[in-house]
């Protein structure tokens, strides 16, 4: 019995037994049990992930378990890294949930309902079986289970806000459209490859015609891209992630979107074994647009959870840039560079999972303490919730890609992979010469706007003076929530200073993928990150130590020079007024105003100004109301026409069904006839 056996047994058994128990026990013990079961399922995922990353192949088949055949599971290093990722997020979210879903005095928490509490472990378990699935049927079944359980969780608070129902509809629609694309792609693939197990697909992929291979790839790109939140299929993210309970948001945003990336890598690079250069360019372009659009929307967002959801689109875009560029260079025969870029994408997936968990859990703590998600009404939480503020700060540092945060490390690897595209001695084609510099520019602008976004989220949300009474009376979260956030923040810190810890594992993951096999880009890394095959080295640990030493040195010297007399507390300059008024502070909207103005043509914000004069005179103003909305322009441009078309088809197709039985019989007969003719012609 291997580690993977133990881990996956714990996942399946824990989730099923746990869900049953949770459904039966009374309300007040449910948070504790549900949290522990979720964390336990997460531990199972981590165990299975460690087992998978050790490199030994593991396959189990359960014949007859699924209606149309066997359930087949297989864990290799690529599965392992995503099992580890999902499991770790689940541990943090599970512990956090113990506090988050508990009822407040005199107030019933909607996230404490029987359905929600029992569904969380099932959701985690179905996510964990996605990377372990090794046949088309198994993958589709667990994929759909994951979609349904998460949909149930998104709808948790449907009684409280109509926007939750709207979010649920969008999410349900998008995820099923994605499922149709994945199913079509994989079924076509399986039919041509002559088998539905991944082994048969791998073996049969080489015999597929190029057109068929590309069709399969584009279909799975659409399906997995919708789950990953890539533009233009991102529209459900900023709706569903904010409306779900926060520990579920963390699970969805940190873990579930990563499975979209997993699917893309598994089918595109493993089962299909890579493809022509335009596949890479397509993924690269989609990634670049997603990164830029996501961060731009995040930089002007004022709803904290919506901001984080757009930031997810941004980070998934960065991963897609890495994957796409890896595909381009692999097609050009530059394997070393492809290896570096693929490693960058995987490392960024891990880093993103770590910091996005902290951030969503932090947003959840704020929401629980104040009832607010609107940054314009927050502020001053650093004094009321010091630990939550500090932990959110660690996450924000990672998300802003600043040293010594963890996001910086993977963006650095990504940039190294991109900038070495010239000097490698491989003749660069014009397409590469144009696309790679633009990609570097996009990554850079994304990094810059990311800094602006998280300075806003942290500075406006947690620092300064409270902008509402709810923020002024916030109380620190209970222990389990702080522990859950702490676990995720600790993994951020480890990934930030010692990314080489996962280096050997990532190299084994790359060995699963034929195009980057044996490139081992991180093999020489220890304290210093050294990229094999290209000249690039950077040591996050030494930079952190250097910064700390400099800070100690400066502090000691300044103390010698100036003494350490306590600072006298004084009033601030209140613009000439008698005392400071929190209405004079900048809000998130006004903080982002310069950016909104610079990117006016892209964002096209909607302004609404109401001036109310006194009844006595039109020249004396009683009040001015200003409202700004930054709608999602891509969504507004693409989805209403699409939905209108679908609706008109629906209306038209009503005429087909007029309620007469003999007409339906005729449909059946004609259908059979057409099928027979098709079979007769094609065979």
């Amino acid at each position, binding site marked *: 019995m291997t580690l993977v056996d133990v881990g996956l047994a714990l996942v399946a058994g824990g989730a099923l037994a746990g869900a049953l128990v949770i459904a039966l026990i009374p309300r007040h013990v449910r948070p504790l049990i549900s949290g522990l079961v979720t964390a336990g399922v997460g531990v199972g995922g981590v165990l299975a992930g460690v087992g998978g990353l050790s490199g030994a192949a593991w396959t189990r088949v359960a014949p007859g378990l699924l209606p149309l055949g066997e359930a087949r599971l297989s864990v290799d290093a690529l599965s392992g890294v995503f099992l580890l990722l999902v499991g770790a997020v689940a541990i943090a979210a599970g512990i956090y949930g113990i506090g988050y879903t508990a009822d407040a005095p005199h107030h019933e928490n909607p996230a404490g309902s029987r359905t929600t509490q029992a569904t969380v472990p099932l959701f985690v378990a179905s996510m964990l079986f996605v990377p372990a699935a090794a046949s088309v049927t198994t993958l589709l079944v667990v994929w759909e289970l994951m979609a349904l359980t998460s949909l149930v969780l998104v709808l948790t608070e449907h009684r409280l806000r109509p926007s939750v129902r709207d979010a649920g509809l969008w999410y349900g629609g998008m995820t099923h459209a994605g499922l149709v694309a994945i199913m079509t792609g994989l079924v076509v693939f399986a039919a041509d490859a002559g088998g539905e197990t991944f082994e048969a697909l791998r073996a049969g992929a080489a015999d597929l015609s190029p057109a068929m291979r590309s069709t399969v790839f584009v279909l799975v790109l659409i399906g997995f891209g919708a789950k990953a939140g890539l533009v233009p299929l991102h529209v459900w993210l900023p709706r569903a992630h904010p409306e779900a309970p926060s520990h579920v948001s963390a699970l969805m945003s940190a873990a579930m979107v990563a499975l979209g990336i997993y699917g893309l890598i598994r089918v595109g690079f493993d089962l299909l074994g890579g493809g022509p250069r335009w596949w890479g360019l397509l993924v690269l372009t989609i990634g670049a647009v997603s990164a830029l659009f996501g961060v731009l929307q995040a930089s002007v967002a004022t709803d904290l959870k919506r901001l984080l959801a757009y930031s997810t689109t941004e980070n998934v875009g960065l991963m897609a840039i890495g994957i796409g560029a890896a595909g381009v260079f692999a097609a050009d025969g530059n394997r070393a560079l492809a290896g570096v870029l693929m490693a960058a994408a995987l490392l960024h997936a891990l880093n993103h999972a770590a910091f996005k968990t902290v951030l969503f859990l932090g947003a959840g703590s704020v929401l629980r303490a104040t009832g607010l998600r609107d940054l314009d009404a927050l502020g001053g939480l650093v004094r009321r919730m010091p630990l939550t503020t500090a932990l959110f700060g660690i996450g924000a540092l990672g998300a802003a890609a600043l040293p010594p945060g963890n996001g910086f490390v993977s963006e*650095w690897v990504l940039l190294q992979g991109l900038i070495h595209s010239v000097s490698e001695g491989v003749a660069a084609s014009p397409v590469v010469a144009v696309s790679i510099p633009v990609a570097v520019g996009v990554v850079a602008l994304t990094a810059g706007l990311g*800094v602006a976004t998280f300075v*806003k989220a942290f500075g406006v949300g947690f620092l300064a003076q409270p902008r509402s009474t709810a923020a002024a009376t916030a109380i620190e979260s209970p222990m389990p929530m702080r522990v859950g956030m702490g676990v995720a923040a600790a993994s951020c810190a480890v990934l930030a200073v010692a990314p080489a810890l996962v280096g050997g594992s990532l190299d084994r993951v790359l060995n699963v993928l034929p195009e980057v096999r044996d490139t081992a880009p991180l093999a020489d890394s220890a304290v210093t990150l050294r990229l094999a095959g290209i000249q690039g080295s950077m040591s996050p640990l030494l*930079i952190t130590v250097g910064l700390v030493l400099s800070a100690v040195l400066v502090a000691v010297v300044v103390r010698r020079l*100036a003494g350490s007399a306590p600072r006298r*507390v004084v009033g601030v300059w209140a613009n000439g007024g008698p005392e400071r008024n929190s209405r004079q502070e900048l809000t998130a909207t006004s903080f982002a*105003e310069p950016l909104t103005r610079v990117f006016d043509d892209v964002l096209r914000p909607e302004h609404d100004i109401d001036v109310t004069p006194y009844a006595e005179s039109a020249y004396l103003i009683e009040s001015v109301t200003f409202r700004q909305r930054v709608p999602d322009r891509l969504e507004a441009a693409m989805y209403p026409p699409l939905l209108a078309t679908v609706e008109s088809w629906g209306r038209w197709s009503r005429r087909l069904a007029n309620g007469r039985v003999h007409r339906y019989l005729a449909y059946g007969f004609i259908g059979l006839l057409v099928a027979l003719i098709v079979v007769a012609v094609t065979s």
Partner: protein
Amino acid sequence: MSAQETVFAVAAAGIQVAVVVMGAPYLTGLMRQVRARMEGRAGAGVGQPVRDLRKLFHKEATRPEGTSVVFVAAPLVMLASAVFLAAVIPFVTTVAAVGGVSDLFAVVAVLLLGTVALALAGLDTGTAFGGIGASREVTIVALVEPTILLAIFALSVRVGSSDLADIVAGTLASPAHVLSPASLLAAVAFAVVIIAEAGRLPVDNPSTHLELTMVHEAMVLEYSGRDLAMVELAASMRLALLLGLGVNLFAPWGVATTLAPLALLLGIVMLIVKVALVGVALAVLEVFMAKLRLFRVPELLAGSLLFALLAVAASYFLA
């Protein structure tokens, strides 16, 4: 690297820090003095910033009510990041005690860390000024970032590495590369970056207290005493660091490639001379310039981005 060499390399880094910390206020003073003379004023003398710092270090520090630890820590973070960069950028010698810290992307990111610390402190004061300064600063930073990274990209192409020591050593080994189209275009882009990052005209006016225009000054408005001294020293150091980085990327002559004492001495002298020359040139140019309206700054930065893109394209097609 032998133990003795490591000690020497650490000592060299210490010398760099000492030179930058001591020299930076004088550089600021020199630039102010040049400007004053060109404008027909007598000027306060080159040593005035040093006298200001000494005065500030002995004054009482205050802190506005309702500020958090971020306000207190920001000057420390800003100054520490500048000290760290003074130690790791190859100003005097390309030989480093430890590898992996002088990557240009990391250097730029650490510089950004100092900027972010000050922006958060500006927000933490909870005043309109602090917030506006922070908002403008991060907007400029966000728009400068693509130019910096693309300029680094263009510079890294000829040596195949983005490590500063490699770039400087590569330029020293083959000086003709400086005149390549890619390098010249990158130099123009980098010049705009330095001006924007250091908060000089026409992006920000370091001597203004006019509320409509100030960026850096708005964020530091609530600092006093030793905290203000640290912020001012860090700001001077950042200017010196950026100018030093600029001259050593495009004209690294004089930088020692060994740890021989004479070479180090030459390195120090050359660094001071080069940075002073560039500083004077910048000050002279500033006399003839007006500050751009904030919302015209993106146009300037877009122009520099174009130069950086052309630099990268040139390195692809002309390599």
